[in-house]
């Protein structure tokens, strides 16, 4: 049972390399084969959840070499929560891929898309549990390459340009990550996060400059990759021009994993005391506050629906950073809840928007008038995501915003409660008009059910159901997020 988390990574990597071979033999079956593998991944992460719930969290040492010699993979509650999120969203997006891909990539490139998909999923799963700075670096790079390729696979120069921008800025980020790692290695002589964490309190007295620069490099480097405002400039281009399933994966999962790595570095390597000694939480809170407003304001100005969703991601990522930088347990719990909830909401919105584009070809928001008469189910699902983003009670977005607000109160900074409320109103300004126009605008045609392929409508509706379910019964998820927050800030 303890081997399951690493088996998921190995299985995905093996699948990534086996798929092109399979594509040569039986082209049609690659999509369904991928579905089986992703289902197996989800089952394994569920089994890990039950195992951890019964036996407690554990560390896994590949090849039974404990640190400082070997690598450590930490299977704690954060890992469990992230593995569930990654594999659940990944599986649903994969369902959507099967029908949608033929309209997004060159004919014959579908198999390569699945290969990239599994490379990305393997790296995300590994990043969630990596407890060693160099392992983090390696999987960060795999993740960056796969994510850029998932954007550039669309045969349009616009996508390639967006992917190039993404790659250049991401490489800056990984360069900083590696430089920070080397600075920490220089003073502690370890790469394992736990061992570095034990030695840092002594090391900071001797070499304060090294450690401060390393912390700065980590936060800026990973901040670029996770699109922390004002380092988000690559995100709107890359996320809006990518094929729809890639947009859902990039916005829903990829940026979140880098936030998790930042969280691990802040709370498990540096520790909250050290983190609070330096005024870095204040800086992150400042960036996050500006980002929440700037992201929402820029989203209001957009005319393209996918671009609007991408700018909305900039704002939502800042909520998660805010939750972490509040350094209160409820704040971190809210941030981690928002990781899951935003992954569900944003992939739901991207997939629904993709379904509009698939059926009608409409990308402009103003042309979506009366779309609720032509595609009622898709539009209903989109509305669930939109209302959840605004934070209407009964949808999962409300729960995470509420928890974040409690976290702000626990950290004795009620200012951020005001920030959350105002930004919710701003969210309403750009999400609600789409819903209102879609359902109450002049219908261009007679009412008809959305005639979409089952594999496109099913994941959209499933995500909407998950969203409502965790909006009405948030108990189990909140408990999971609380346990995860306790690993970071006991």
């Amino acid at each position, binding site marked *: 049972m303890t081997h399951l988390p690493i088996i998921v990574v190995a299985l995905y990597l093996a699948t990534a390399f086996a798929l092109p071979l399979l594509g040569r033999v039986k082209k049609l079956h690659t999509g369904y084969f991928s579905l089986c593998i992703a289902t197996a991944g989800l089952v394994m992460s569920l089994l890990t959840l039950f195992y951890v719930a019964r036996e407690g969290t554990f560390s896994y040492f590949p090849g039974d070499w404990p640190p400082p010699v070997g690598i450590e993979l930490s299977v704690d509650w954060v890992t469990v929560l992230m593995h569930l999120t990654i594999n659940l969203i990944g599986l649903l997006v994969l369902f959507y891929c099967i029908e949608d891909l033929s309209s997004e990539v060159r004919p014959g490139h579908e198999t390569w898309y699945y290969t990239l998909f599994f490379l990305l999923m393997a790296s995300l799963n590994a990043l969630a549990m990596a407890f060693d700075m160099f392992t983090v670096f390696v999987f960060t790079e795999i993740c960056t*390459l796969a994510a850029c*390729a998932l954007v550039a696979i669309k045969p349009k*120069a616009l996508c390639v340009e967006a992917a*190039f921008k993404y790659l250049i800025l991401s490489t800056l980020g990984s360069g900083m990550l590696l430089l920070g790692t080397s600075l920490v*290695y220089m003073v502690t002589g370890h790469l394992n996060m736990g061992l570095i964490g034990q030695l840092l309190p002594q090391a900071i007295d001797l070499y304060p400059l090294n450690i401060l620069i390393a912390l700065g490099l980590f936060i800026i480097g990973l901040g670029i990759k996770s699109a922390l405002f004002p380092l988000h400039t690559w995100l709107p281009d890359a996320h809006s021009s990518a094929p729809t399933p890639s947009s859902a994966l990039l916005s829903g999962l990829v940026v979140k994993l880098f936030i998790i790595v930042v969280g691990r570095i802040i709370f498990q390597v540096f520790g909250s005391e050290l983190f609070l000694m330096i005024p870095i939480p204040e800086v992150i809170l400042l960036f996050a506050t500006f980002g929440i407003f700037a992201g929402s304001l820029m989203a209001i100005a957009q005319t393209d629906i996918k671009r609007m969703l991408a700018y909305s991601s900039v704002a939502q990522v800042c909520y998660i950073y805010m939750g972490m930088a509040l350094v209160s347990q409820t704040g971190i719990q809210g941030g981690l809840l928002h990781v899951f909830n935003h992954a569900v909401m944003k992939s739901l919105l991207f997939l629904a928007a993709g379904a509009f584009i698939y059926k009608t070809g409409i990308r402009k928001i103003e042309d979506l008038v009366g779309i609720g008469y032509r595609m009622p189910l898709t539009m209903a699902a989109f509305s669930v995501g939109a209302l959840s983003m605004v934070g209407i009670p009964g949808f999962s977005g409300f729960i995470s915003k509420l928890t974040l607000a409690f976290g702000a109160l626990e950290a004795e900074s009620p200012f951020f409660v005001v920030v959350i409320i105002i930004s919710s109103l701003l969210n309403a300004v750009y999400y609600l008009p789409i819903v209102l126009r879609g359902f109450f605008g002049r219908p261009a045609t007679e009412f008809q059910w959305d005639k979409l392929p089952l594999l496109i409508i099913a994941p959209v509706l499933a995500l909407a159901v998950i969203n409502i379910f965790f909006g009405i019964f948030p108990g189990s998820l909140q408990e999971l997020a609380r346990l995860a927050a306790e690993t970071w800030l006991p």
Partner: protein
Amino acid sequence: MFETLINILSALVSNMHYLTAMLLFLIGFHTMLTHSNLIKKIIGMNIMETSVFLFFISIGYVHNASAPILDDRVAAYVNPLPSALILTGIVVAVSLTAFSLAMVVMLYKHYGTICSDQIMRLREEEQ
């Protein structure tokens, strides 16, 4: 006064490798962000990554020590871990370079230029 200057200078000279690595890092960083030529951006990316590799390897250097091959006559070994890690780093850097060059080829085929400013102008004209 004069003595402190000499101390600083001698510290700089004895830590030449760190200084060089940092300078290279900044040169690469600057090239990546400011040059509009896409190939120069990739060159900058390589300079930056190589500088980090230089920095990482120089951490493991021990003065008057030999290569880490077991030998009874040798007293001290160089730390082999940074070199081993950087091997992985080099592989990663090569794949990043190959991928970004492939993307430049695709952009050049479509736009006929590798200047990012011109590409941006052409893109706006297309829209």
